[in-house]
């Protein structure tokens, strides 16, 4: 039920509700959470930012799920990138050593190859995800959404018993 609710909310906010910037902001911040492993200091900070800023929570949660899957697939690349940054670039060694000795920095687990590799990738991707999502939301609300509703597959899914059951249950809850 949670998943259906999540997807429905996400599709709903694509259609109407919050501004494209709010949806894209939530989605982009969620992508950082999704790409990086959980339970790091920077993860908590991102959650904090999501909760403080008026960004869309459904978009953030959806993005977290999508990018977690992407992170799982690209994990070896993050590992190699992280190893390269932590071990092979001698110029960064001083910074890593200072961070390693700093009181709070170890909580970021920056010395883990996957954490640093995925975090760097997430930061690089952040602007692309934000602006890409913003454009997509605008396009969805003006053209894509309407076209999608007219497609046969949408009609079939919309009339399927799963969706019908979900909508009935949702009505009961409400």
């Amino acid at each position: 039920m949670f998943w259906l609710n999540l997807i429905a909310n996400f599709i709903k906010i694509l259609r109407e509700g919050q501004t494209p910037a709010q949806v894209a902001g939530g989605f982009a911040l969620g992508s950082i959470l999704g790409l990086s492993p959980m339970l790091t200091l920077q993860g908590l900070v991102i959650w904090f930012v999501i909760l403080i800023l008026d960004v869309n929570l459904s978009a953030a949660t959806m993005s977290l799920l999508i990018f977690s899957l992407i992170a799982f697939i690209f994990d070896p690349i993050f590992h190699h990138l992280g190893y390269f940054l932590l071990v092979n670039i001698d110029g960064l060694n001083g910074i890593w050593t200072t961070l390693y000795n700093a009181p709070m920095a170890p909580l970021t687990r920056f010395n883990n190859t996957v954490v640093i590799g995925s975090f760097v990738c997430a930061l690089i991707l952040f602007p692309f995800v934000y602006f890409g999502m913003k454009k997509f939301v605008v396009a969805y609300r003006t053209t894509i959404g309407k076209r999608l509703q007219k497609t046969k597959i949408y009609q079939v899914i919309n009339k399927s018993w799963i969706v019908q059951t979900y909508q009935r249950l949702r009505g009961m809850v409400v």
Partner: protein
Amino acid sequence: MRKKFIYFVLIPAVIVCIVVYLFIDSWIESAFEYGGEKTVGAKVEIDNLHVTLNPISIEFARLQVANPSDGWKNLFETGKVRFSLNFGQLLRGKYIIETMEMNDLILGTKRTADGSIPKYGEQAVKIPLIEQAKSALMGEESKSSTSFDLDKIKRELKIDDLLNPNNLATYRRIDTLKKQINDAGIQWKTTLDEIDKSKVKLADIETRVKSININNIKTVQAASDALNNAHSILTNANDIKTSFQTQKNLLTNSVDGFYGSIKDLDNVVEQDFKNILKMAHLPDISMKNIAEILLGKELLQKAYEYLGYVEIAKNRIQNSSDKPPIETPARLKGQNIHFPVERSYPKYWIKKILISGGTDRTQDPQYFYAKGEVHNIADNQRITGLPLTVDLSATKGGTTTLALGASIDRRKDVSLDNYKARLTGLPIAGMSLGRSDFLPSKITNTIADASITVTVPGNHFDSNTKVAFNNLSLTFDREPNGIVERIVRNVLSSIRGFNVDLRIWQNEEKFDVAFATDLDDKLASQIKRVIGDEIAKIQKDIRNKLNAVIAGKRAELEKLYNEKREMVMNKVKEYETIVNEKLAMVESKKKEIENRINQEKKKQTDDAAKKGKDALKGIFK
């Protein structure tokens, strides 16, 4: 009472505590064995480990560490070992031990089961130190043998065969030079022909100079034209001279180059002489190597054995600053990279180990007892800031003493290992001297004192060993063959002791051995007195014959070279004379024209002055 708290928190916690209490001994034992095996690369077995909680300390009855090179032997085994752990650091997952007492340490005991661990994965291809040293330390017997039997040398020496042209690099060099001179001769001739062609131009210059007739120059304008013509001719002549000068330089350099090559033949001859002496198997007249032949084999073999221990320390104790190798972790786990931590503890650090023990009394009748301290065994010396140090003293059989000090430093990028050992009163019996083909003999009853220093900075290696043999007593396996063996035997029989310095070092890729002993001088003076003159005479004979063989061939080369050189130089000289003559002719003509111009100018000035005077006279009449 909160029942839920009791059921879901308190009771499980009590159960966990009981399980931990019951099994903690075996868990820690397994963890120690696993860690030890990872470090040593062979089985580590701990018996009856027991943990006490107040204060936190560990005690076990026996520790066996298998030798990674020989699984059926232990590197060492201990009796009872007891140590306390720093509780504060243990909470942080670090094993810090202030003092460890290790009693009844026994080295090299036999095992009842194979203690080797199969090696998985590809190992980096790295040639071990002892493999690199093998050729330098173990090749003594296989070195080409030098005979010391003068009669045999004279009998077997066939100088004419040795002076076969195929054995002489000088012959081949002369043939090559001859061919090169002939080839160059063709080139020189071509250049000279080109120079010859310039003679036409020189003749043209002469004709043009002669065509300028000074007597026909009546006016300043005519003189100026003639001067321009002369300048043009002079420019042409200078161009021809410059071109000639360039070609002359090329020819001279090429010719002189061969002169240098012919001079260099002396060095080739010298090398040929050395090669022939080598082929003749003549002994070095200084007799410097006899002591090395006598003593080297056994000492170098011992050095080779001990190099194995240095190798183990070098490889097993990793450099703290090495870059960690990349691992293949499970998905989303990653690999943790650790950086130097200030004011912190390494993962494990045994600050001091008190050792006492020795070889197995049951297996070794000459029981060896050692005691001492080992400091700072840690997984990361950059954190402790202290190198691993060993300070041991030992006795064997009540007469032999050993003082051993070692420092294994992994604090910097380049590792540095230092070892110092001093042995006194070491009884030596049965040590082989000589070789199978030269005075095979044995030391039967001798006392030796030795001091050894070994330095291993990074991939380099340098060791110095000084051994003093005292109260020497020898037995010879057979009667001496030849005069040199007899002399050496007499010298050895008359002395009661000698000193040996052995240096083994490695620079970049190469292992090398230097051997020095005071026996050299004693042997050399005796042998030189008897056979030195004879050997010198044979060498001189070879040298004279070699010079004679080379002289004929060399004369042919020099004749060819001188002919070609003379031909080139004569032609060049001849042409140079012609060029200079023509240039002088042009210069002379130019000067004449310039004089003529001056005369004409003066004449015109005089005429103008005269006309002026006449005009004035007319006015005042």
